[in-house]
């Protein structure tokens, strides 16, 4: 059995007819944590959206393989049901549906099995405690009136509950204070095992202080220009991205 989970080959993506990604290659194996770093506008969020096949992002060439299956042109919900999760930079507010009911509904869709509500609620509560979330949020409308930090924690909560094979975290650390970043890191550690993988997308290195990662990729102007280990992140922290720009 192959250990490979995600394989992106020569991916080119346009947004509003403008080319943003100019041939991305990326391989992620089970059990690994990868980080894509890069300055604003380099194509980080585009990479995440393209993997999930957001219709606003047009793939002009290249392919995305997941668990041996070509998912390049699958619909977003099918990709999610195949086991990819994305934590949003700006999670949407959905009035009138509680966090619990939403998670129950989504879990049903992903596992295609009915959820046992009592155990399920207990599970959610446990995760919320770990993430230092107020349990009252279970009954509140999804993300409505949540602070930025609460929204991000709620994304991590969803990741834990939905338990995907690959979690893509798009700027989950941005805008969080040190304690919240630690909590998020803890959530990632709880989630992580030998069979799944995490792809962290960030423009700064703060989260890497409390989390051990396997690979760091530097994304500049729609291309991965350098790949290394945690050391690479340190260098960027000291010297910035300038040396990787043309």
């Amino acid at each position, binding site marked *: 059995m192959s250990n490979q989970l995600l394989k992106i080959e020569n991916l080119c993506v346009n947004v509003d007819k403008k080319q943003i990604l100019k041939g991305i290659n990326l391989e992620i194996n089970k059990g690994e944590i990868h980080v894509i770093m890069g300055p604003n506008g380099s194509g980080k969020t585009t990479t995440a959206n393209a993997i*999930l096949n957001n219709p606003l992002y047009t793939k002009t060439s290249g392919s995305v393989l997941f668990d041996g299956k070509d998912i390049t042109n699958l619909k977003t919900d099918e990709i999610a*049901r195949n086991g990819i999760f994305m934590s949003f930079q700006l*999670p949407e507010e*959905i009035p*009138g*549906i509680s966090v619990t009911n939403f998670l129950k*509904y989504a879990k049903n869709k*992903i596992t295609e099995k009915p959820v046992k509500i009592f155990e399920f609620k207990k599970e959610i509560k446990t995760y919320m405690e770990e993430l230092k979330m107020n349990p009252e949020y279970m009954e509140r409308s999804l993300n409505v009136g949540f602070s930025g930090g609460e929204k991000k924690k709620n994304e991590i909560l969803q990741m834990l509950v939905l338990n995907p094979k690959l979690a893509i975290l798009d700027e989950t650390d941005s805008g969080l204070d040190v304690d919240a970043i630690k909590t998020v890191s803890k959530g990632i550690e709880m989630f992580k095992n030998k069979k799944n993988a995490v792809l962290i997308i960030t423009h700064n290195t703060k989260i890497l202080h409390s989390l051990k990662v396997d690979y760091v990729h530097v994304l500049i102007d729609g291309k991965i220009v350098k790949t290394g280990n945690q050391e690479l992140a340190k260098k960027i922290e000291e010297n910035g991205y300038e040396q990787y720009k043309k």
Partner: protein
Amino acid sequence: MSKTNIDEINRNIYDIKNKDEYDYKIKKGLTAEIINEISRQKSDPEWMRQFRLKALEVYNELELPTWGPDISELNMDEIATYVKPKTDLKNSWKDVPEDIKDTFDKLGIPEAEKKSLAGVGAQYDSEVVYHSMKEELIKQGVIYTDMETALREYSEIVKEHFMKCVPIYDHKFVALHGAVWSGGSFVYVPKGVKVDIPLQSYFRLNSPESGQFEHTLIIVDEGASLHFIEGCSAPKYNKVNLHAGCVELYVKDNAYLRYSTIENWSKNMLNLNTKKAVVGKNAQIDWVTGSFGSKISMLYPMSILNGKGAKTEYTGISFAGKGQNLDNGFKVIHNAENTSSVVNAKSISKNGGSCTYRSLVRINDNAKKSKCSVSCESLMLDDISKSDTIPVNDIRTDEVEFSHEAKIGKISDKAIFYLMSRGLSEEDAKAMIVRGFAYPISKELPIEYAVEMNNLINLELDGAIG
């Protein structure tokens, strides 16, 4: 992104048509002769016959409204105003004829009653065919009966209140109603009696080209409380059907009334209904309205806050699909000190449907220290649907708190993508957003109506949300 619309409501269970059987159907058109005939058929007391004739005069004098949706397709000469079903009032469900019973069964009426509703009155065409009320309520002196019986047995109280709250001069369709009204519910809750389970009635039109002019008269006496639920439905015919009912609510000092409605008329119905409540000192009327059916709807329940400290809340939702023009809203008159009103109106339009929120808020100069807060939100599910807000605010004193908020929006692609990234299909995602939008209204409804409303919104999707 390819566009997926939330689908037309599956109306199958609402569109069950019975054979158009009736033992008597009056000639088309409207004359004093016809009004006299209606009156004779119904064994009206003389004052009621005179009242009907007066209303006919007013009807003939008044013009059709020149504002709002175009109702020129309506030809009153084409509408048979009185259809008497082939059965008399029954006290037991068993005695109702099979096909009529079948229709009600499909609509869940006796089931609803079994779920411990206090009483059910079902109106089939123009006469109430089935009526019942729990024993203990009768013992407490609560009266719940059809209008014809009330006219015979409680004539004084009917005469004192009948079309006093909604005068026949209000508009042409009210005058018409006064002339040809038939059927409807009468409720009286004596002083201090709290009816803690809802009373409900169900109106249904079956015959093509027939109008429905039921009259609802509810009196909640001092310190009493009641929740009344009205549901309306009609199967579909090609000719235009008219509904011009009238609802008069008297909420006396310190009393409470909650009036809930789900209107699901078929898509050829013109719903020109008039509803008003007169509210006494420290009393409260709450309206909860779901408007889904009909071709054209012009419906603006009105609260007249006459007593100091009187309150009203309006919570309403309209859902217009293809070919529907729902012009709904709310009117409130603050006519005493310290009165307050809260309006929460929502609308959803799709497939070219049109929703308008039309309202009147009047705060008289004797209504100092009053409060009014209005919020209306519209959701359009595509680019061809319409939504509009036409508020009229007439405030005649300075010492008031008044706020008005209006929001018109579409389902955002970002929200759909967010939900799809959690494994929901595009249809599921849209339905979840729409149900969530409607939730503040549906949570105000009794559970079986909330379920009905969700089914109406829901459409072809399984997995109801808990």
